[in-house]
Each structure stands twice: as C-alpha cells, then as structure tokens.
C-alpha cells in the first residue's frame, strides 16, 4: 500500500481560499528505461489524481511519465462548508490509493 501525505488546514473561515498539498509515494517508472541487459522496463505510473470536497470534484489531474517520482501537487479551493476531502490516485497495474482529510469551516 502506498503511503500518502496530505496537508489540509484543519480550520478555515468560510470563503477563504485554502491550499492543499498532496504527496504519494510511487516509483513512476517511465517505460522508457532499460536494464543493463537491454530489456525495457515496463511503464508503471499513476495516471489520474482526483480530489473531491464533500463528494464534489474540485481538482483532477491526468499524469504522464514526465511527472517526477512520488507525485506532488499543490492546489487551492474555497472553503465552503465543513466536511471531508477525498483523494484518489489511480494508475497502471491496477494501482489504487485513497486518502481522506477533514476540515472545519466556521
């Protein structure tokens, strides 16, 4: 199971723009490299990352091999109401990881 780091403010004022940082450990093998014997190493990357805020999508990214290992994203959203953020990463070889974070909006 891949481990992910999520940074969401615990509290925010209604209407504030908050910054969310996410990092997940993943090799992001490009599929363009070869072993010393010349055998190509098959691609193994995360292809999609979605963040939802109370079930509504606020951020989505399609990833390509040009994303560095351990994909990291920083993005923003407007704190509208208390609730949970759900983060989902999907990738090659059936890779699936999900994380949650909650926020209190006052």
């Amino acid at each position, binding site marked *: 199971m891949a481990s992910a780091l999520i940074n969401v403010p615990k509290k925010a004022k209604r209407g504030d723009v908050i910054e969310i940082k996410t990092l997940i450990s993943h090799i992001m093998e490009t599929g363009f490299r070869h072993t010393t014997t010349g055998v190509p190493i098959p691609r193994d990357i995360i292809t999609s990352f979605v963040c939802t805020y109370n079930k509504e999508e606020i951020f989505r990214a399609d990833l*390509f091999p*040009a994303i560095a290992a351990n994909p990291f994203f*920083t*993005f923003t959203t407007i704190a509208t109401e208390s609730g949970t953020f759900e983060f989902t990463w999907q990738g090659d070889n059936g890779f699936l990881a999900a994380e949650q974070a909650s926020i209190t909006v006052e």
Partner: protein
Amino acid sequence: MSKDRKTAATRRRFLAVAGGVTAGAFVSLRYSGATPASMAAAIRQVTGEAVVQPGKVRLEVPPLVENGNTVPITVSVTSPMTAADHVKSIHIFNEKNPQPNVVTIHLGPRAGRARVSTRIRLADTQTIVAIARMSDGSLWSAKADVIVTLAACVEDL
C-alpha cells in the same frame, strides 16, 4: 613598473578572452525557439484549430536545473475564477522528453485561485509550454526555457 603593466595587460587580456568564452557558451546554450513537431502535434490535439494567445499564464520554473529527475514547476493563470469566468484546464507540454505531454489539470470555479504546483522530469535542456483553457473557450499560453545539467529518463539500471 613595466613588469606590473605587463601583468595587468595579461590579466586584462585573460579576462577579455574568458569573458568572450563565457558569452559564447551562453549564446550557444540559448535555445533557438523552434518547436519540435511532436510537441506541436500534442498541442494541436488539445487546442484543435483554435488560436492560442500568449499571456495570462505564468510558468514558474527554475531557469537552471541540476537534476532533471525532479523539477519544481508552478503554473498560475490570471482569472477571477468565478462561475462565469474561470480556468477549465491547464496543459503542460515539453519538447525533448520521450513524450510531449507532462500533465493535464482540470480546474473549476471552486478552485478559488488558478495556481498549481507539481514536480516534473526533464530529459534535456528545453522549452516548456503551458496552455490554459478558459471557460469561454479562449486559450492562453506561456513558455519557459530550462537548462538541465543532469537529465532524467536516460540512465540505465
């Protein structure tokens, strides 16, 4: 006295030569600005026949990168991010990696600000292009030149 003058002259000449060499190196490293065909094709796939205008987008990348395996990049777009006027997607392209696409980001009015950071791989000294699609369908772009000392993707295991 004359010896001093001679030393000074030599030093001056050395500095002139060294300066010339450095300037020459910079000129040769400077990217000519032509866009390789694969990147142009990838951009065409996203934009279709629509006109891409320069402006509104800001691409923050270090101009000189030591390690191409992880290059921090930040894209921001000037937009009020309201329901009527927001950034729908941001596409990042490169021209010398094995694949022209880097990442596609989908945003909406709930983002509040159109500003996204991530880390990318760069296989060579090259130009990166970011294109933003607005809710009204217009397309805006920005370019950044990056010099890469240690390239990603090429090393064997």
